[in-house]
């Protein structure tokens, strides 16, 4: 199981999913109406490192974070 965390304004509690890559996560999140609208603009981190490929492998216990558009300062 991997844990999916939704950061900042994505008002949703963490969920757990079976997934062996980010592609698996993408496929499953597309079925979640609350989350789908954020997929277009959210960046993705695995274990707190930003990643750039859907082929990023995932293993049991990994944490995937969705980061919506930012505005610090």
């Amino acid at each position, binding site marked *: 199981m991997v844990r999916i965390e939704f*950061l900042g304004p994505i008002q949703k509690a963490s969920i757990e999913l079976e997934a062996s890559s980010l592609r698996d996560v*993408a496929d499953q999140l597309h079925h979640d109406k609350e989350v789908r609208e954020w997929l277009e603009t959210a960046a*993705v981190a695995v274990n*707190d490192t930003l990643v750039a490929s859907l082929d990023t492998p995932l293993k049991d216990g990994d944490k995937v974070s969705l*980061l*919506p558009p930012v505005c*610090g300062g």
Partner: protein
Amino acid sequence: MVELYDGPLDVPTILQRWYEEEAQSNYGAYIPFIGTVRAEDEIDGLSFDIYEPILASWFDAWQQRAKEAGALVKMAHSRGDVPLHHSSYIAAVFSPKRRVALETIDLFVEDFKASAPIWKYDLKNGERIYAKDRSTPISGSGLLKG
């Protein structure tokens, strides 16, 4: 380390502490950038969420980048609510060289706006409203859109 504070920043105290911390470091230039909440759109203030693990790694990477340019960066930011005319953000650069300091503060502040995992909300009539229109997707976002 990034310094995070609940509520508004005590700007004079932070600016003074940083100045004194580097007083003997032989830097010729010290440039802080102070961000203050403006009265606009009838807001009562701003509020911030921060994701600290990625902010820390973003800042560590900047500290390394600054070091290679011959500079040092410092940063402070507010968590939670900050009323009008109070400050939520200070970024600072120290360098022996004026040009390095001026160029680095610009790059550091702009990259902060584009990349630091901080979310801004308008405080308005007791509500906390995500400042979506002023927010920037982090580079590489949309990966999961399929």
